[in-house]
């Protein structure tokens, strides 16, 4: 495909997009989260309704808009009126909405979440003015819930491949400079500057180089990447293409966790579509740059989210990490220089190329630029996926966007950053969320999973649960992690079963120190964090368990509450 052909395809795409929006149409959010609460049943009911009534109307299966609490979500658009998004659209309710809104042109305020587009409708707020949306800055998520994920024309009509086209007209050094000025840091949790990783790969001489997308979002309690992969897979592929061009790789790999079958399916379809039009293959856009993408399915090992373990897994080995340095950017897949980037990082790259570094850096803090997607779950009124400027406080995220506690109980803490993150007490919710600011709590932002806990959660039991997870998932290669998690788990089980001893807390801290210093990879180094942060912020709960045999949350069955 040449630049001119792309342009032509883009024009067609925009025409089709306008055509779609000039006619009545219905959308249904069809990602895994929607499917889990009946989106497919709703979709079937909508098709049946339209067939029965003999109504011709486009039904577009879109991705996830992030308001997961209200799923299944559908929208109805009529010409001359803004689209209306409806929540909890069960099959019955969907038919009622179609009857009233689509057929009788009477939007149903009672079920509406909000309107999108020009104009207003009495009694229905603008969706982007509602509490969950108002303070979001949706850049990365801009297409999520609005386009058909695997439809290349939808992607092209919404600015898709502008970034690649721009990139191909630039020198790799200019792209590196753009990313450096933007200040994009890895969204997987560590926050390493993306440009620096790419530059290392460029500067390492080799006959072959690789780029890898880490789509193994193993952290429990986070699903940002899943939403992106299922709702806007092309943006990840475009980011991977730009990375490949920049570092001089002609092969890219996407390592997708087996837990995400729908993401895998949509990536497969998106790759095929790009191959078909020649946006993957030889001499892309007449630039001389050739690139192929290989989709690799994980086989269920949490540790494979660690980059060296992920590389081992692609090579067909057990997914065990190795010591770094050398970092993969210098010596990675089959010992060649390899850039490994997170889904969210790569998905952001085309936006930055398209809009420029200054646009990206408009939001965020001094050291943590840009916006970031977070998943908000647990005991919160409005769980879902949000995108906010880095530096927003936990309180703003949980109270304003999340709507506070979903129970009558008080919110006690959050667990943030996956099993290696930590627990932050409510008293520290005024800290901004970015790469550095949470350090005083002992926790870290990580990949952006926020799990809200109320007074029904026992913090000692939560620490036990998370250590049990890390113990299960430890690959067993290095001693501090393999034995440390085992011993910590044994002590925590003792405490939660009423067999705690004075001195257990000190012992836990000692083991934690050894693990942090001695473990080979991030899993073992971070595994003690939930224990250390709960000891730091909820020491009284540990002491009650050990001395009084009391669990105030009533979770530990062997103890009194």
């Amino acid at each position, binding site marked *: 495909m040449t630049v001119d052909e792309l342009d032509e395809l883009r024009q067609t795409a925009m025409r089709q997009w306008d055509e779609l929006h000039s006619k009545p149409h219905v959308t249904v959010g069809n990602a895994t*989260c929607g499917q889990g609460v009946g989106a497919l049943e709703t979709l079937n009911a909508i098709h049946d309704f339209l067939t029965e009534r003999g109504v011709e109307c486009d039904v577009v299966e879109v991705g996830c808009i992030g308001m997961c609490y209200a*799923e299944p979500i559908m929208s109805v658009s009529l010409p001359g009126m803004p689209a209306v998004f409806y929540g909890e659209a069960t099959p019955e309710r969907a038919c009622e909405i179609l009857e009233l809104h689509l057929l009788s042109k009477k939007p149903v305020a009672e079920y509406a979440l909000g309107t999108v587009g020009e104009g207003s409708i009495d009694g229905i707020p603008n969706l982007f003015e509602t509490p969950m949306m108002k303070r979001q800055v949706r850049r990365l998520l801009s297409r999520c819930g609005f386009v058909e994920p695997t439809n290349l024309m939808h992607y092209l009509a919404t600015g898709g491949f502008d970034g690649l086209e721009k990139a191909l007209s630039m020198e790799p050094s200019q792209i590196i400079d753009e990313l450096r000025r933007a200040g994009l840091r890895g969204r997987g949790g560590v926050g390493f500057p993306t440009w620096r990783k790419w530059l290392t790969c460029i500067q390492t001489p080799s006959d072959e180089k690789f780029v890898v997308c880490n789509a193994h979002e193993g952290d429990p*309690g986070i699903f940002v990447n899943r939403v992106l992969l299922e709702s806007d897979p092309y943006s990840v592929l475009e980011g991977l293409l730009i990375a490949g061009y920049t570092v001089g790789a002609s092969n890219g790999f996407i390592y997708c966790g087996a837990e995400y079958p729908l993401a895998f399916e949509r990536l497969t379809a998106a790759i095929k579509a790009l191959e078909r039009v020649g946006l993957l293959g030889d001499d892309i856009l007449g630039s001389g740059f050739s690139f192929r993408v290989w989709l690799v*399915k994980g086989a269920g090992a949490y540790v494979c989210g660690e980059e060296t373990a992920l590389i081992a897994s692609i090579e067909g080995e*057990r997914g065990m990490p190795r010591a770094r340095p050398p970092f993969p950017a210098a010596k990675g897949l089959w010992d060649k220089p390899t850039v490994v980037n997170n889904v969210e990082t790569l998905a952001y790259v085309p936006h930055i190329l398209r809009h420029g570094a200054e646009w990206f850096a408009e939001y965020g803090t001094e050291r943590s630029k840009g916006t970031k997607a977070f998943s908000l779950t647990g005991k919160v009124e409005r769980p879902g996926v949000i995108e906010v400027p880095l530096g927003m406080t936990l309180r703003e995220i949980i109270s304003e966007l999340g709507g506070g506690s979903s129970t009558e109980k008080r919110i006690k803490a959050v667990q943030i950053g996956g099993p290696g993150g930590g627990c932050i007490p409510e008293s520290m919710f005024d800290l901004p969320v970015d790469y550095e600011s949470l350090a005083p709590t002992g926790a870290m932002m990580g990949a952006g999973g926020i799990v809200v806990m109320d007074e029904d959660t026992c913090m000692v039991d939560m620490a036990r649960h998370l250590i049990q997870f890390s113990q299960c998932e430890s690959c067993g290669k290095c001693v501090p992690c393999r034995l440390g998690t085992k011993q910590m788990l044994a002590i925590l089980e003792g405490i939660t079963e009423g067999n705690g001893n004075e001195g257990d807390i000190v012992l836990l801290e000692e083991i934690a120190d050894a693990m942090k210093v001695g473990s080979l990879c991030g899993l073992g180094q971070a595994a003690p964090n939930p224990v250390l942060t709960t000891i730091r912020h909820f020491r009284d709960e540990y002491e009650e368990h050990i001395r009084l045999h009391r669990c105030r949350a009533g979770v530990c069955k062997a103890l009194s509450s």
Partner: protein
Amino acid sequence: MGLVGGELERRLEEILGAFCGKRSELIPILQRIQNEFGYLPEDALVKVSRFIGVPEAHVYGVASFYEQLRLRQLGKNIITICRGTSCYVCGSSKLIDEAKSVLGIDEGETTPDLKWTLETVTCLGMCAHAPCAIVNGKVYGKMTPEKLVSIIRAVEGGRRS
């Protein structure tokens, strides 16, 4: 479900025919075999080791390392309960306890009559609808112990009729 040696052989040949025998193909090959047979029969592992030219121990090492590769036959029906953090906070342990007691098996086990397998998974990424479970490929959000039992009963009832 017992496979006659010749039949296993033939289907394996067919699967391996689609690969070239590179070391990096090991996991995709095992995934394909598992798709075909539901698990990884021992004879298949031996054959794969010869096909790729690696020791049997290496194939076994990889097959036993990954949670989703299975060395034993699974039940006809599979329940997978998410034990991710959000699901845990929202009560997934009650689901696991209920399933264990109704089916009379532990996590990772299969009933002796090969009807049911109970598994847990690290995270399905459906955290907004915690707690979540998958029964025979269908995902369910906001699962309760009662709902889970009624799904199990419905599957059993359906099979009898």
